[in-house]
């Protein structure tokens, strides 16, 4: 901690600067002339203490940038038509809708494959002459014993339904078709199997297991 009495900061006062003291930082000063924003400088006349405000120059001496000043952000520049990055970008279009054209950090024009993805697992994502194409997929598995659905998260899934072709049985295990997405019982009055979709709490059952539905970034 600083001893302000000992430091006697105010003895350093000038017409342009007022010195104060705290035990944390010791002497510190406040300028009499301060600029109202980041686009102006304020100068103080040491003999009179008068303030003069001048507009700062944002010229960065780079002919390939246009220079501006924002009162809150200060000087900034925007690349113009002779900037290598802008020139690269202007000449980087390969007219192929299936490539993403970009200029890299070395201002070299490059073309990466367009990543066509609409985030919908129920569409087939392709790229052609008109760019990305998203076509609805068919989930029909031609199995009369399943109801076919599509989840935008997971794609096609097929819920078992009571089937018109009856499976004969004497006990429950006779009905096991090794399908983790269905439950079954042997109906002892008809000696045929009854099948039910597994209860996944509203989420689809895919590949023998319930999906959790938790989406993760």
């Amino acid at each position: 901690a600083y001893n302000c009495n000992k430091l006697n900061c105010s003895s350093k006062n000038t017409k342009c600067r007022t010195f104060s003291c705290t035990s944390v930082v010791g002497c510190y000063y406040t300028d009499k002339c301060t600029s109202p924003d980041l686009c102006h400088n304020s100068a103080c006349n040491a003999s009179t203490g008068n303030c003069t405000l001048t507009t700062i120059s944002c010229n960065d001496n780079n002919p390939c940038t246009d220079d501006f000043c924002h009162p809150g952000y200060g000087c900034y520049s925007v690349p113009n038509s002779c900037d290598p990055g802008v020139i690269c970008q202007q000449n980087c279009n390969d007219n192929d809708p299936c490539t993403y054209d970009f200029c890299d950090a070395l201002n070299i024009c490059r073309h990466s494959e367009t990543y066509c993805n609409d985030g919908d697992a129920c569409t087939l994502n392709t790229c052609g002459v008109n760019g990305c194409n998203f076509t609805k997929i068919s989930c029909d598995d031609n199995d009369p014993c399943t109801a076919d659905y599509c989840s935008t998260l997971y794609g096609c899934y097929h819920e078992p339904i009571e089937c018109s072709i009856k499976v004969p049985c004497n006990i429950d295990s006779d009905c096991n078709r090794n399908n983790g997405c269905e439950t079954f019982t042997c109906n002892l009055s008809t000696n045929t199997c009854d099948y039910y979709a597994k209860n996944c709490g509203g989420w689809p059952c895919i590949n023998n297991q319930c999906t959790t539905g938790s989406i993760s970034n």
Partner: protein
Amino acid sequence: NSNDGSNFYNLNDYYTPENWNYYSGSFATKDCRDASYITIPLGTTGGLDEGNLSSFLLTKKGSNLFIALDAGTVWQGVRRLTTFKYFNTLFNITYPSWAVLPEQRTSWFLKNHVMSYFIGHSHLDHVGGLILVSPEDYLAKNWIDVQPPINNGIMGLIRKLGFKPTDFTSSSILQKKTIMGLPSTINSISTNLFNNQVWPNLPSFGRYQYFSLASGIEYPFTELVPYNATTMSLVANEFPFSVKVKPFELCHDNLISTSFLFTDSISGEQIAFFSDTGVPSSVACDWEGKIYAVWKQIKIDKLKAIYIETSFPNNTPDSAMFGHLRPRDVMKLMDQLLVQSIQTSPPMTNLKHVKLIIEHIKPQVAEDPNGWTTQRVIYQQLKEANNNGVRIIIPNQGDPICI
């Protein structure tokens, strides 16, 4: 006095004794003696905990210039780092005389010591920290003349390169932080985040510069700065200019993610950073093949560390992975690393020299039969399948790790 903290229980959940359940790396003298690099976990978990999301700082031993690898949480991690007891014995940071509060020091560290951000993908838990600190993440022209002068960090670099405050113009690359990534990532950040709607477009006011990197192309850091070779020769052997980086595309469910492979131009040592990647749930993607493409570029005896995610425990079904990894996936990748990397003669048969830094562990929010944290579960599962002796590290926010 109701303002003394006594109204709260001390949760104490991620520190002693919980942290004794796994190895979190080390900055101890014996561990740092043979190390070349130091990494600082700024955020270690995946999702949910907005104060601790994926981000690491990386520097070379002896330097105090840092690059950030992903930027989910920045402020909270740096704040914790600056209050770390042995902080300045490692990095020799000089603050302005007035910077006495933790937030003043956090801000200064960001301004003067973090040079670049490598962003692996544009999900919020990997960029949110960058967006939020951006108004303070800037070395204003008037700082260059701060008295007494500060000669380390970016300000030290400016002086070392022979620049004066008057050379500090609006287009000075050293004044701007750089945001690097694959074009799809950069496009998403510029279009969807710094767009004057979600957040002010600070890059357009000279605060940041975007650098798109092409997959599979190696970029020396010296060429990412617009100064001639003569100027850069003064720092060519210093971090980060002594490093080359090569990005690779990865699968992260329906999004392109990135691995950045860093190679030391002097020693040839390598560090592989993986942003989120893994088993897809909603789209088909050769996620393993894309990781093997990175392995094929690694000289196994030069590899120092791998940062890779392990979001979920082993019992998570593929349908709930959404482009992430489990311990069993990660250890299969380690087996393949020995097979697919550039081998020595005679070939190396283990990975004992490699540190495996586990990122993006999802907090335990569901029932666990033992009441364990996911960190503990995943550490156990990784250890049980660790056939190659890789050094598994579950990082702690703000605790440096020598690598």
